[in-house]
């Protein structure tokens, strides 16, 4: 049933749409090398790089589209790419 006026009442419901399958390359973050400059966190168009409870940045592959901005912007080369094998 379409809502009256096609209003969407569930904020952020796009999370139902997992965009991880869009990737050709997967960014892999080496937390050992990471200096926590937050570049990858702030530049990610999906907002899918977040800190975990230990303060380490983690990539959510459910949504990562593999744009590799994070890799490109990492000042210490802590992020590398690997080909997705489909």
């Amino acid at each position, binding site marked *: 049933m*379409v*809502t009256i006026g*096609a209003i*969407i009442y*569930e*904020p*952020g*419901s*796009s*999370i*139902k*749409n*997992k*965009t991880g399958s*869009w*990737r050709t390359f997967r960014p892999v973050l080496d937390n050992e090398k990471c200096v926590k400059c*937050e570049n990858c*966190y*702030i*530049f*990610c*168009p*999906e*907002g*899918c790089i*977040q*800190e975990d409870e230990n303060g380490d940045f983690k990539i*959510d592959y*459910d*949504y990562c*589209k*593999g*744009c*590799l*901005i994070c*890799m*490109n*912007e990492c000042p210490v080369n802590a992020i590398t790419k690997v080909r997705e094998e489909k």
Partner: protein
Amino acid sequence: MQFPREELFAPGHRGCAGCGAAIVARLLLKAAGKDTIISNATGCLEVMTTPYPETAWRVPWIHTAFENAAATASGVEAAVKALKRKRGKYKDKKINVIAIGGDGGTADIGFQSLSGAMERGHDMLYVMYDNEAYMNTGIQRSSSTPFLAATTTSPAGSKIRGEDRPKKDVAMIMAAHGIPYVATACISYPEDFIRKVKKALSIEGPKFIQVLQPCTTGWGYPPEKTIEIGRLAVETGVFPLYEIENGEFRITYKPAKRKPVREYLKMQKRYRHLTDEDIERIQKYIDEKCKLLGL
């Protein structure tokens, strides 16, 4: 700077990998916070974030049409005022009313409604996410398309070498409205953009921010370069960062030494038809502009 952690722009949206518009939205909401109402013009951002029944927005959001994000926001702002005054709605919260539109929806078809809203003094922020062409419909030129850039309606042909007019300076036109705050920004400088949004929202009245947002599809570069290209646009002086607060002009980022525009142009397919002579013309044009701004 510790960036605000709250994510008000959800993943799962349909933006291209490496989408600059998504970065604009995410940074904007980080700066504005949850007490914000967004009026979004038709365009890439609107389409990619709200295919029914899904939305990437975690703040109240409205889209009505292409040319009227500012007019729609006028109504929202007026209603918020009236409902606060007459019915005690929103408690004592300060509600940020923000209109956002692409360069087409802002500088072209939405220009009249933008001018009207700014002139009327509504307490709102208008954010123009500038990707320099109509990306939603497949890269047609807008008045914000820069000189000699190729688009599908300003193709590089044997007689005409891409867009034959310089980029329309919307920020300066907004400044001419005498509004209290106008700024340019670029997603490659997130601290600067967030600071400007926060500053704008702290000022009462109409505010305008033009934020440059490279587009991987429209400009023709690999998606991982979105931030790098934006940075080059600023470092070369192609897109200067400044703010005009109560008429006071201030450059907010001055490159130590401007890089040659060639470095910026050569990374993008939309400029690949340029000859050395063309590049020289662009360099000259940028030099003159920068001189004027004191860059």
